[in-house]
């Protein structure tokens, strides 16, 4: 296999709060290879968005990276100067945000926003940049681009705005696009259109995607590999097909059993008892143990490492074989 495009090792992000420091991301590692889609899934507060933002230095003011390395295309982002980092952002890596209305500039025509990067970063002439903007708008499926190029964001529907944002993300010819819940604010029909557009672009332009979402079905549809996050840590990773068929971490299992499956009607949904821990004082040992049905005394003894399970899979659970046995007894995905 080729070299990874994105290599993240032991990433740590801390928030300095009045009541102490809170480690929102605690030792997260993953690789993304050219042209592949990796899903980062977790509930709110799991650290998935913070981890994603840390990759490109878009953290809120209270947060800072306190450890680990991020390499994009062989460049150590932490060691590189601000100038080099800027060069990476936009041309090698770009980002799509959840709320297009707050991410776009409300007083700038969308065509100008799309043309900005070709004009400034790629050094195109005004005319070429404008043509490039039209070409990108066509590529992301905006109908009637000659007219829409002069529209302001508020004149467009939510789906169209998200397409504009994707066009902006593509405008610097990046090789990696970071997507932060890009369809959460959209209707299911529009979400479907945007997801299919992203898949098409990934295939045709050979860009890699990191896809953050809380929606397991969205990840299943868009990504081949995933990392499940809980309380700031990756608790399970592997190919989506394998992890969904046979989860090896009790949290992944709990999530899969708690969502209503469109293809298979279950009698009752099981739920995960309790709520995620306060990261200012995480539980001793395994962070999931207070909510875990498989808990044993050894779970509390110390920090649990991410255990390699072969086939590119890993789970942060000492009792992953018991989880697997439970899944074999009662499959999570009934159909397929």
């Amino acid at each position: 296999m080729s070299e990874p495009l994105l290599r993240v090792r032991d990433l740590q992000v801390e928030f300095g709060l009045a009541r102490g420091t809170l480690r929102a991301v605690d030792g997260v590692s993953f690789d993304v290879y050219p042209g592949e889609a990796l899903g980062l899934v977790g509930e709110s507060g799991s650290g998935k968005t913070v981890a994603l933002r840390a990759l490109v230095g878009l953290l809120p003011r209270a947060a800072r990276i306190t450890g680990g390395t991020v390499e994009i295309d062989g460049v150590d982002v932490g060691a590189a100067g601000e100038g080099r980092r800027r060069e990476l952002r936009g041309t090698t890596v770009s980002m799509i945000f959840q709320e297009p209305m707050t991410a776009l500039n409300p007083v700038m025509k969308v065509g100008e926003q799309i043309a900005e990067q070709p004009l400034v970063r790629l050094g195109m002439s005004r005319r070429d940049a404008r043509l490039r903007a039209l070409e990108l708008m066509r590529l992301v499926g905006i109908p009637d681009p000659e007219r829409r190029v002069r529209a302001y964001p508020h004149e467009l529907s939510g789906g169209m705005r998200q397409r504009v944002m994707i066009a902006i993300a593509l405008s610097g010819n990046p090789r990696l696009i970071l997507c932060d819940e890009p369809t959460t604010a959209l209707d299911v029909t529009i979400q479907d259109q945007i997801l299919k557009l992203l898949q098409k672009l990934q295939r045709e332009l050979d860009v890699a995607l990191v896809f953050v979402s809380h929606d397991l079905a969205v990840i299943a549809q868009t990504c081949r590999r995933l990392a499940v996050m809980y309380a700031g840590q990756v608790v399970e990773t592997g190919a989506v097909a394998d992890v969904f068929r046979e989860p090896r971490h009790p949290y992944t299992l709990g999530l899969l059993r708690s969502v209503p499956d469109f293809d298979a009607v279950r009698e009752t949904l099981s739920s995960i008892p309790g709520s995620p821990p306060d990261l200012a004082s995480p539980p001793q040992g395994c962070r999931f143990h207070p909510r875990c049905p498989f808990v044993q005394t050894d779970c509390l003894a110390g920090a649990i490492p991410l255990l390699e399970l072969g086939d590119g899979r890993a789970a942060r659970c000492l009792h992953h074989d018991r989880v697997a046995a439970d899944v074999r007894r009662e499959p999570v995905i009934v159909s397929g």
Partner: protein
Amino acid sequence: MAEPLLELSGLHVHYELRGGLGRRLRGHAPEILRAVDGVDLTIVRGETLGLVGESGCGKSTLGRAIVGLCNPTSGTVTYGGETLTAKRERTRRRRIQMVFQDPYSSLNPRMTVRQTLAELLRAHRMVPKEAVEARCLELLDLVGLGPRALDAHPRQFSGGQRQRVAIARALALEPELLIADEPVSALDVSVQATVLNLLEELRDKLGLTMLLIAHNMAVVRHVSDRVAVMYLGRIVEEAPTDELFTNARHPYTQGLLRAVPRLVPGRVSEGAGVVGDPPSPVDLPTGCRFHPRCPIAQEPLCSTEDPALTGGDAHTAACHFAWSDRPAAHVPEVIQEAT
């Protein structure tokens, strides 16, 4: 057929938009937003009806018109044989209660749970004064919250717990019909299941009739007995849940179902379920409202004639081709591997 509890007939809710100053000065007539535009719907006692559709289709307005939070422009809401208006007396108001989407904004942040519940119990004289406290505890127990919750403010609860308080508040008046407007969409995945299970459990225990308004098709399939699909202010299809999910007749329903992301990895249908954006409810398409986005529309029929809901007793659909055997209505699902 069982006894109908609620009947909507020819229900319209229109909003007049004020429009810009220039528009008003020039004396143009105000634009009309047709949020609900001719809905006939029956809910039978004891059933759970799911109402689905895209945002802006009028599903929440329909719910609000039923509880009396907005006035219908025309048409009637008949409940247990009597016609209800938005302004209704206390005893009638009690019988239909609502749970809102966002438990962060639907609870008064300055009132404790005890105050919230006790105020209702007193105002509606649900129990004798001395029994108010006991009834509050009983209600909390019903939604799975301990007695400690009684003196807490909403900010001290998680999202799921707040939604439980909101459900307890709706149940305090012992309603017969509960309208749940997107009750879980603001909640985290693992918490959604507990709230859905609670709603189902309460429905069975208290014999509630329920109208579940939601956009998540998997949630609707899980909870409902019957489903109505709404598009631009109209019901376009209505059927028992299993029938709707396996044998949808309206191209919009078929598209909605194709658009749902599936848990089975690698199962992706080629092409979008429904193309384009929904048209504005201020400027509705002529003829069939779905024809600009419809894969099987035929000119000039679909752009001139508005199809009525047709079909049998249980399954109706508003499409000219709903019951013809046109194969084009069923776009084949292409299965391919995600990369």
